[in-house]
């Protein structure tokens, strides 16, 4: 691949797209696929060919359009006027004829999904900019929207250290949870000893209630490959791994296809863009272990071992995969890299807040009207996400809490709803940004039960290596079970609080250290619910089954 070839592919693809008068985009990401969008796409294809419109109307499968709650989603876009696109919701195969008939006339009214609403207008798309636009299975479409231009720019005009400086200046922080400076991490790996280095993409999205990474991988896989290649160039790595959940078969399939295409196009492999830069990517399948989101456990898993973490230091940046300096970033972090390179660090740093730059993708789920995938600028008030973008709480119920950060995060109560969503503000109320799961809970959710749910998760996901996490999560889960079934005592609560402190301070890895967070935040903001279970033997939300106080034993 030469720079000229890259721009030629882009031009040909763009010209081809212009030939069609209309493009019909059908969401074939896992969300809509589960409501049979593949059948919708087939029906549209048949309808178009039946009417002999193949040359003027192009039906294509695209990635996530965002509003999963209203799927299957279909978007009809006139090529000449992209702004006049119409979105249809809850489309079935039977609607295909009506949609194709409407191409030259008014839209099919009964199916229209309004897009002039805050769910769409308040979002700011960087990571998801191609999602729902391009066909994830075709590298040409990615190239046509400036794909791999960032990689080209980097290898042909920048020194590795300049790339790192650029990422550093952008202020990008890890999107996997902790929010460590991406530039700093890259520079540590770049300085690492030895000539063999690795780049790993953590796509083991393990938080229950999070599907951002899955969506990015399914909708725009090349974006992640390009981000990894840029990182590899910057730190001096020639081999990369994507550690992806086996539970995401569609993402795995699209990634495999994307890697094959990139290799064939010379965008991965040896002598990329004709310079002495070699970089290959292999996929490694996770096998259902949340703890493998922890860097050292993930490395153990790629090495084919039990995914148990080891004490740090040494950090993977110094000694990681097979003892070599290893860069681990998550999917969303890598996906942010190509636009930062193309548009410059100043552009990126201009979005967001002082310490949290850019945007963040959230998986909005739970008791909220518009469940789906959203991307918002950092610093947006939580209230805006819940009520404007999310459309508020359905069924006339009242918001109780917003859960962020999964089992390592916390439950944020209504009174903090006006806080900006950024790393520091979330930490201040005892939660974390996490990878981006955001679960809305209304007054039918019992906060003690939610704490129990997450503790059950941690107990079953604990690797069992260190004592405080192995035994502590089991003890805490037992205590929460007692409290929710009405047999808990004041002493149980005291012990629960004590164990929170012990796990936090003494556990080996992040799983155990943060396992107490859901308990601590619910205790901080919803202590009265614990008291009600313990003293009055009632569940205010009415969701726990309280047994009559039997004998003590």
């Amino acid at each position, binding site marked *: 691949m030469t720079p000229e070839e890259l721009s030629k592919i882009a031009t040909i693809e763009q010209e081809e797209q212009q030939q069609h008068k209309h493009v019909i985009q059908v969401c074939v990401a896992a969300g809509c696929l589960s409501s049979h969008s593949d059948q919708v796409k087939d029906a549209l294809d048949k309808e178009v060919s039946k009417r002999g419109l193949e040359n003027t109307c192009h039906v294509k499968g695209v990635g996530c359009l965002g509003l999963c709650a209203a799927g299957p989603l279909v978007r009809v876009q006139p090529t000449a006027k992209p702004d006049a696109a119409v979105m249809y919701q809850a489309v079935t195969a039977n609607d295909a004829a009506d949609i194709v008939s409407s191409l030259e006339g008014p839209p099919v009214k009964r199916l229209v999904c309004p897009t002039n609403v805050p769910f769409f207008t308040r979002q700011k798309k960087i990571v998801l900019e191609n999602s729902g636009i391009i066909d994830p299975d075709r590298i040409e479409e990615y190239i046509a929207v400036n794909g791999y231009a960032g990689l080209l720019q980097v290898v042909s005009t920048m020194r590795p250290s300049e790339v790192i400086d650029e990422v550093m200046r952008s202020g990008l922080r890890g999107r996997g949870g902790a929010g460590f400076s991406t530039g700093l991490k890259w520079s540590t790996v770049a300085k690492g000893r030895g000539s063999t280095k690795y780049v790993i993409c953590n796509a083991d999205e393990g938080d229950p209630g999070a599907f951002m990474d899955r969506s990015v991988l399914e909708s725009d896989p090349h974006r992640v490959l390009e981000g990894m290649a840029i990182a590899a160039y910057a730190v001096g790595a020639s081999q990369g791994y994507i550690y992806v959940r086996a539970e995401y078969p569609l993402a795995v399939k699209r990634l495999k296809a994307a890697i094959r295409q990139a290799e064939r196009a010379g965008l991965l492999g040896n002598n990329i863009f004709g310079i002495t830069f070699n970089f290959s990517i292999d996929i490694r399948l996770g096998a259902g272990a949340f703890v493998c989101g922890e860097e050292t456990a993930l490395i153990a898993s790629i090495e084919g071992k039990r995914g148990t973490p*080891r*004490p740090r*230091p040494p950090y993977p940046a110094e000694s990681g995969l097979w003892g070599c300096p290893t860069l681990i970033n998550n999917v969303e972090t890598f996906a942010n890299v190509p636009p930062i390179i193309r548009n410059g660090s100043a552009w990126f740093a201009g979005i967001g807040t002082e310490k949290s730059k850019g945007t963040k993708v959230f998986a909005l789920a739970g008791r909220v009207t518009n469940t789906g995938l959203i991307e918002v600028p950092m610093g947006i008030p939580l209230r805006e996400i819940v009520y404007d973008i999310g459309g508020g709480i359905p069924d006339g119920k009242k918001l109780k809490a917003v859960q962020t950060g999964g089992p390592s995060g916390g439950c944020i109560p209504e009174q903090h709803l006006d806080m900006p969503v950024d790393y520091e503000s979330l930490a201040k109320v005892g939660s974390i940004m996490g990878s981006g799961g955001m679960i809305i809970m209304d007054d039918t959710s019992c906060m003690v039960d939610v704490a129990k749910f997450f503790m059950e998760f941690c107990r079953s996901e*604990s690797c*069992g*290596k260190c004592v*405080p996490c192995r*035994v*502590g999560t089991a*003890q805490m889960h037992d205590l929460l079970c007692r409290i929710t079934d009405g047999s808990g005592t004041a002493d149980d609560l005291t012990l629960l609080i004590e164990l929170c402190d012990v796990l936090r301070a003494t556990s080996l890895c992040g799983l155990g250290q943060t396992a107490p967070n859901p308990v601590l935040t619910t205790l901080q903001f919803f202590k009265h619910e614990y008291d009600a279970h313990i003293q009055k033997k009632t569940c205010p939300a009415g969701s726990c089954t309280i047994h009559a106080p039997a004998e003590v034993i």
Partner: protein
Amino acid sequence: MSPQPVPQVRVVTLKIDGRDVGATEDETILEVARQNGIFIPTLCYLDGLPSIGACRICLCEIKGANKLLPACVTRVQEGMEVTTDSERLTRYRKTIVEMLFAERNHVCAVCVSNGHCELQSMAQKLGITHVHMPYRYPKLTVDATHARFVQDDNRCVLCTRCVRVCDEVEGAHTWDIMGRGIDARVITDLNQAWGDSSSCTGCGKCVHVCPTGALTEKGRSTAEMVKKQQFLQYLMQMREAKQ
């Protein structure tokens, strides 16, 4: 294996419990503390086996670090200030040891290792007189299929000394851990009876490095099982000398 060139190691000075001590930078806090007669309690650690920092009992406070660090795997650094004993550390250590007592069925009074058990003596050293969290009472098995040894899961603390000694020193890797979290167990081969193991050489190293009565010699009665661990040091020295 050919002799490796000895890398240059720097000498550093640090403070442990307020005392100025000297060390080389490839040493751990635990090693340096022991050389200077400072006691740090340990359980999964065993001199001669690779350290894993798993039991969390040797955690120490390091000035400037936001986390407690395990002395057995943390290397010393110039100017480091280490506190090995404090009210807070003792409280954590006690709770962790109590967790182990609560996790499985440790009935010291009828154990073959009574009086020679590292968990038991650790509890005494830390002043534990009772366990302030609920006992879990899991249903566990005793494997007496081996001709000379017994494995009693009720008394296992999952320190993995047996796994490490079998893998690193004996080279058989008969032992490993199955499952995870609270359900993790020590197993032989494909989770089969020890007596049927095709890889076990019957060397007994695992029995003698086991800190409790989980692995013992057959035919011992209460309090009769005394572990002999000197062999490990001896083997390591002999192997080093050969290289």
